[in-house]
């Protein structure tokens, strides 16, 4: 049975059950001896338990606004994911546990005034793009007698890209994949870097016609070059590429991103993205994730 996401659920914790048992024992003592102070202790314990139940319930009910982002996850690797929560929605410093279906271990977040980001771990064995599974958050605040929880749904995605393969040279991989006659993506004459395709015009040089694309039936296309010598690295992937190759590309992509080297990412011969920024990285990772899913 799947419990609703909009509700808060509450049950006594293991310690809470012990506490209830002790309260019951004190109650038995009270009715056995008829001692007024035992009655007082029983009633006091009951009142604190009730107030605590309300407090625990309200602590978790108040947490309503969660800011999720698309999550990029390396295949076979446990990653920590952070979800922002509104500062106004918690009573005071408290510990909140968060777990999702894709979590391997349970993570505790200590929410304070300075930290309002909830963390949880995610791990996946398969590449691909899927919907972020719903998150269960719970707390035992303030006395640990009750455990209140709620489920949080998100419309964001989890992008699982291929596992990074380190220690392999990208040129070697190219050679291994395409043989020695691998065509360079540079303008041989000027050493300018290939930028994009555009439709053939009569005035264009025949040398700049992409015959390979013509052979694939895409019509006459002229290669546009950047006009100056570029240090950009072209990473080309194909739908038939295996996971190891995709892993090498992923690793190269991250290496370039971290050292701010411009990369041109080609998928099936078409330029998907070019740049050094985060958006470019994410675009490439998405493509790698879907290609990885296909190759699996």
């Amino acid at each position, binding site marked *: 049975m799947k419990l609703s996401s909009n509700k808060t659920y509450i049950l006594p914790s293991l*310690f809470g059950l*012990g*506490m209830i048992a*002790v309260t019951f*024992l*004190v109650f*038995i*003592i*009270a*009715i*056995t*001896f*008829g*001692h*007024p*102070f*035992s*009655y*007082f*202790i029983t*009633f*006091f*314990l*009951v*009142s*604190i338990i*009730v*107030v*605590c139940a309300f*407090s625990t319930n*309200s602590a978790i*009910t*108040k947490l309503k*606004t969660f800011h999720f982002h698309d999550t990029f996850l390396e295949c076979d690797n446990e990653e920590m994911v952070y979800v922002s929560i509104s500062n*106004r929605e918690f009573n005071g*410093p*408290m*510990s909140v546990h968060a777990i999702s279906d894709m979590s391997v271990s349970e993570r*505790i977040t*200590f*929410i*304070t005034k300075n930290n309002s980001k909830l963390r949880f771990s995610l791990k996946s064995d398969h590449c691909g793009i899927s919907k972020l599974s719903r998150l269960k958050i719970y707390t*035992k*605040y*303030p*006395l*640990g*007698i009750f455990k209140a929880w709620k489920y949080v749904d998100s419309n964001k995605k989890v992008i699982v890209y291929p596992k990074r393969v380190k220690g392999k040279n990208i040129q070697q991989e190219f050679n291994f994949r395409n043989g020695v006659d691998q065509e360079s993506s540079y303008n041989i004459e000027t050493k300018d870097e290939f930028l994009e395709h555009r439709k053939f015009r009569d005035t264009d040089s025949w040398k700049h016609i992409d015959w390979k694309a013509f052979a694939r039936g895409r019509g006459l296309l002229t290669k546009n070059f950047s006009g100056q010598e570029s240090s950009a690295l072209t990473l080309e992937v194909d739908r038939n590429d295996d996971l190891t190759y995709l892993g090498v590309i992923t690793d190269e992509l991250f290496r370039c991103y971290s050292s701010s080297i411009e990369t041109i990412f080609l998928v099936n011969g078409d330029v998907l993205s070019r740049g050094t920024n985060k958006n470019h990285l994410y675009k490439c990772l998405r493509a790698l994730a879907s290609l990885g899913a296909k190759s699996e």
Partner: protein
Amino acid sequence: MSKLFTKISLIFYILLTIFFIPYFSLSSLSLFSIIIVTIVSFRLTKARFLSLLRFPYLIACVLIIYSEYGSWRGFEPASILFSTLVLLKMFELNTKRDIYSLILIQFLHITSLSLLVEDFYYLFIIFMSLIVCFCNLYLVQQISVERLVFKKSITRILKFALYGSPIVILLFLSFPRFNFGGFLFSSSKATTGFSEELSPGDIAEIIKDPSVVFHVNFTKRIQRFDMYWRGQILAKNDLFSWEKSKLPEKRYTEKIFKKFDYFVTYDTLTSGPLFTLEKTRKVVLSSMGSLINLKGNLYRSNSIRNKKSRYKGWLGPELPAKLLDNYEEVYLQTNVPIDSEVIKYRNKHRSLINKPTEVALHLKDFFMKSFKYSTTPGVYNSANPLDEFLFRRKVGFCGHYASASATLFRLFGVPSRVVLGYQGGIFNKVGNFYVVTEKDAHSWVEYLAEDGVWTRFDAVSVVSPARIAFGADAFFEFEKLGLRDTSIEDFVSSRSGIFGELRQYIQNIYYQAGTLFFNYDLETQRNLFKKFISFKYGQWVLFYMPYLLLGFLLFLAITGREKIKSLLVFICINKYRSLKWLKYRTLTEPQLIDLIKDSSTSLVDLILMYQRLRYSRNESAFKELSFFFKAFKILVYG
């Protein structure tokens, strides 16, 4: 964390034990001290073998319980066992789980200690102990988030206690309190200081105990001089001692139809003699139990469920005793040697024989002349202690006077008997009631007057009138301090300062709390309900009250819903930031939204909803209803 909690728990334990030291034996206290020393050395040295001593300590505890009490039953063994368990648990406070189990044992420990006491100020100690336990719980939860939040934990738990107080009061008022008497380890004890015999000097022992016996509320004014609370009658004489015997008379059966004259609430007694005023003609038990009307105008209660006795008393006219034919055999019986000086004294005043009033006057004169009242008269251990008291030492306590004067009455041919009970009490101006303590224990004599009425004769009232006039509490304290330059009147007036008033306030709280909460039982609840029913229109109101309330609420909701909505919004805003009503009235909805937009989004929604409902026509009733739900939700959850 483990070090911190060991420290906190040890300090808490030591403080708690200090408060309860009188209830622990020397051997158990020594065991606790040894365990504490072991824990401290274990924490300092980390020597593993010290932790292995836990099991021997537990066996030592069991042996102490067995050697001292010989039983597992009872409050003392339980408190010793739990005290030891709490200490042993402190050896291994390594994880959160250990701390949780320690706190659970601490709760049981506090409960076992609470069973040992009934004094009101212990309630405060118990309350504070519970607060400390809950603070520890809060600390365990918060220590990983924030460091050392002692102050915060106390304020948070006190806040919880405040929020929970209506629940405690509600439970106290609505939960019927009774016990199963005899279930598990229960044992019922009747506690009055009196036994069924009186040897002079017995009462001097009883008055050393300052504990409260009962509280009395009078519905009409009665002077302290007339407050003689009769509990037992001793009619069998053995020279200077008296014993209980069968009384040769019938019970009174007169019926009385009027409001009761006084209401007595016992502090400790469950079953036993009820102490009633002299002219009491009717007694009705208010607590659960049965009442026995004994001969000699005495009453006894047998509590059913171990409840403390409470009764109402009705005063009536003085009635002649309904004596049986053989009454003289009992009421004139003496065991005085013929050659004793008291017989010679009787023979000297033969003219008084069979003249009760004259004998009484004569005895008053006799005692007033040269006798002295003292709580420490010494032991009368000669062959004839009666002669020694009456003709040589002439120093005694109430027991001596009662015993001697009853014997003298009998020697003069006047039927008499010794009565045991209490005299007077301390008046509490704040609560308008009297508190009778063991200090007020007293004995006096009743003789059969010419008109056949049992008449009181109290020699103490002539030997030491201050004891009767100012009460036992003030008199004994005055005696104890030995203030020769001050008169007792000045001493009594000096006592009524701020502290005296404070004491009365505390006494009143104790009494009211006892009546309203601690001794409150199923029957009192029934009585409360009955009182309401007995009101002329009570039943009618009770039946229609829910409908009336519902109707009134509906009326309010329909006619004044705009005002209620505005008020709700105002209260909701005040939850987040303080805003005066007058200013609130001048602000428009957008201004209000501007004011609180940083505080709560749900409140902004509520104000928008309020605006919509206010300015648009024909909004559905469901929407209006949902506004109220939303407002209450904000009030409760924020």
